[in-house]
């Protein structure tokens, strides 16, 4: 078994072989999901709690469906961060949940590092469903699976990541994953939305989108995270669309067979042209959603195996 991690907190701690093993297993779950009977029993008897301190529809639904298809008992807890601020600290919430003996905890939190903190206090496997601007590992894995299925490989590709890099955990996780898999990465953003020091991670930086798209095999668009901005990052949405919105004219600078990706939800007419997003010859945005369920099934399956093995060792330990 190549995948050894106890939690999935980010892409950073994963080895390339672990990434590949997630993708391989996810491929099999894609097949399962396309059948009429989608049920599996690998998580039977296990409890999965989805704890979202930040609003989410898509990711939460994807995790919920993934857990249910694997036979887990799934519970959703929507914890708006405001109610947490009123009293209970994150650690208290974690300890309360831990006492209910969940097996898998899926957590999204508005603060970078919060999921790491929580993982250090519980006995179950923790999956990071996005923490602040830090990481969103299942998104990067599902993007990798989408790319691998569309391009036939996840190495030696030129990938342009474009848009609000500064506020994006998706960009960070993708940057780390694509680097580990030996791809050429370009970041395209207005300088106000480019985090400082990222060139040190081994990528090329562009503020001219056409220049950055030249020769790209994959064009990954990011959502403009208006909710994380406290004003003044861009002059206006229309100027942003003019300079950094993906349309057919700008896409023509990329390779003719380049695919277009977006983690959703999209701001049509802000970062991407609506028609282009729906163009089934170029856009793999719907595939990403499909791969999302399969990748999350694979991640939970692998973490559950490790959890069972760990508990098995503990039981053997007590008997001896």
């Amino acid at each position: 078994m190549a995948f050894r991690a106890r939690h999935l907190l980010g892409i950073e701690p994963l080895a390339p072989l672990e990434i590949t093993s997630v993708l391989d297993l996810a491929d099999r779950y894609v097949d399962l999901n396309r059948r009429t009977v989608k049920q599996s029993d690998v998580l039977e008897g296990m409890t999965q709690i989805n704890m979202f301190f930040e609003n989410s529809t898509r990711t939460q639904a994807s995790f919920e469906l993934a857990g249910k298809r694997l036979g887990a008992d799934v519970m959703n807890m929507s914890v708006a961060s405001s109610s947490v601020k009123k009293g209970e600290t994150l650690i208290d919430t974690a300890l309360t949940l831990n006492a209910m003996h969940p097996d898998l905890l899926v957590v999204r939190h508005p603060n970078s590092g919060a999921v790491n903190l929580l993982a250090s206090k519980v006995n179950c496997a923790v999956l990071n469903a996005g923490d602040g601007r830090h990481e969103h590992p299942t998104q990067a894995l599902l993007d990798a699976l989408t790319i691998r299925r569309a391009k036939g490989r996840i190495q030696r590709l030129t990938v342009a990541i474009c848009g609000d890099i500064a506020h994006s955990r998706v960009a960070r996780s993708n940057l780390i994953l694509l680097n580990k898999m030996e791809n050429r990465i370009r970041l395209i953003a207005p300088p106000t939305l480019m985090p400082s020091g990222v060139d040190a991670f081994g990528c090329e930086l562009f503020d001219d989108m056409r220049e950055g798209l030249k020769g790209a095999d994959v064009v990954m668009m990011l959502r403009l995270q208006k909710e994380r901005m406290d004003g003044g990052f861009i002059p206006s949405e229309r100027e942003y669309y003019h300079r950094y919105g993906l349309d057919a004219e700008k896409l023509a600078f990329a390779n003719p067979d380049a695919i277009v990706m977006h983690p959703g939800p999209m701001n049509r007419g802000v970062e991407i042209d609506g028609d282009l997003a729906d163009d089934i010859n170029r856009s793999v945005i719907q595939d990403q959603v499909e791969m999302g369920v399969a990748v999350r099934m694979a991640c939970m399956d692998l973490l559950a195996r490790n959890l069972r093995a760990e508990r098995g060792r503990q039981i053997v330990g007590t008997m001896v």
Partner: protein
Amino acid sequence: MSTLHFHNARLIDPETGTDAPGTLTVKDGVILGQDGKAPKGATLIDCGGKCLAPGIVDWGVKIGEPGERHRESFRSAGLAAAAGGVTTIIARPDTLPAIDTPETLEFVTRRAQESAPVRIRHMAALTKGREGREMTEIGFLLDAGAIAFTDVFAVSTETKALSRALTYARSLGALVVGHPQEAALSKGASTTSGKFASLKGLPAVSPLAERMGLERDLALVEMTRARYHADQITTAASLPALQRAKAAGLDVTAGTSIHHLTLNEFDVGDYRTFFKFTPPLRSEEDRQAIIAALADGTIDVIASFHTPADEESKRLPFEEAAAGAVALETILPAAMRLYHGGHLSLPALFRAMALNPAQRLGLPQGRISEDAPADLVLFDPDAPFQMDRFALRSKSKNTPFDGARMEGKVLATWVAGAQVFTA
């Protein structure tokens, strides 16, 4: 009081810059002189060849009285200081409420005298409630014993109000301590911008925000001719401005924190909140530049910026956690890292930790020459140990050095010739 004669000592004298074997004689709490014979009837103290230095004058210690005694009391801070070789605490006014009236100042002065085994002097707030709008009763506060005036980490954005406070302070000869930081730029930041902050996705501030804050403060000093001390200079970019101000003859000094001298931004690692500071830890290049600035005298003072924080305020996501660390008991072993690393000699370290702060604040401490108060620390610079935060005497245990291997142990501490700590 009795007469003490310290012999077989390695005397660390920051005034002369010497580090040599010698003896020291103390009578009635005052130093009689070095290298004399033991007077008749004197108590002989064999220092075992270890270092005898002036006690540390720690400028900028947060104590939780009034308001947050669960974090630190005068008693616990005093015990921690004695164990750490700190003989004079210069306490901060960022309490609840702030020390901004003579009445509050008298209260804390009385409490400190009753409870602490070391000397404690208080800074008062420069503006009411540390809000940066209206100056405090600087004259009355001076009469009540305020040693300097500062709003600590609350940076006034009301430059006009600040210039008036500085002008008024100047007329009374009061020393004003500023926190150089561009407040709007650093708002919400918990790390220094750069590769690390970007990788971890933490809100960050450019190191230049410190220079911008310093340049403003120095321009105000030029305008008002106030006596000014910058509490913490932590970035290389601030140094030229500081050098220019000193060369121009402005009455300006600067300090830095022991943590910024011994740790860098990467120490935060996996969101470890004990490594969160105000200002945030800097790059390794900045750390090296600050050490060099201490060696060449651009920066005058090293302080601990002891900031007790309870577990609850640290067990939070990094952005929301409290900043600061307890350091009264770790300032000396941390400083020994600079000595063992070959960056600063022991006399140079005690110049920055004892002599310079005392002189700037008009205190007779920080020296081991004739007529100086016998505030002394005996320590072994080489003794190794592993730091255990639960062994600290502070009520709060938030030290970044927990589990760290350190060298430098305080063996004994004297205040006015009376022993207040023995290991």
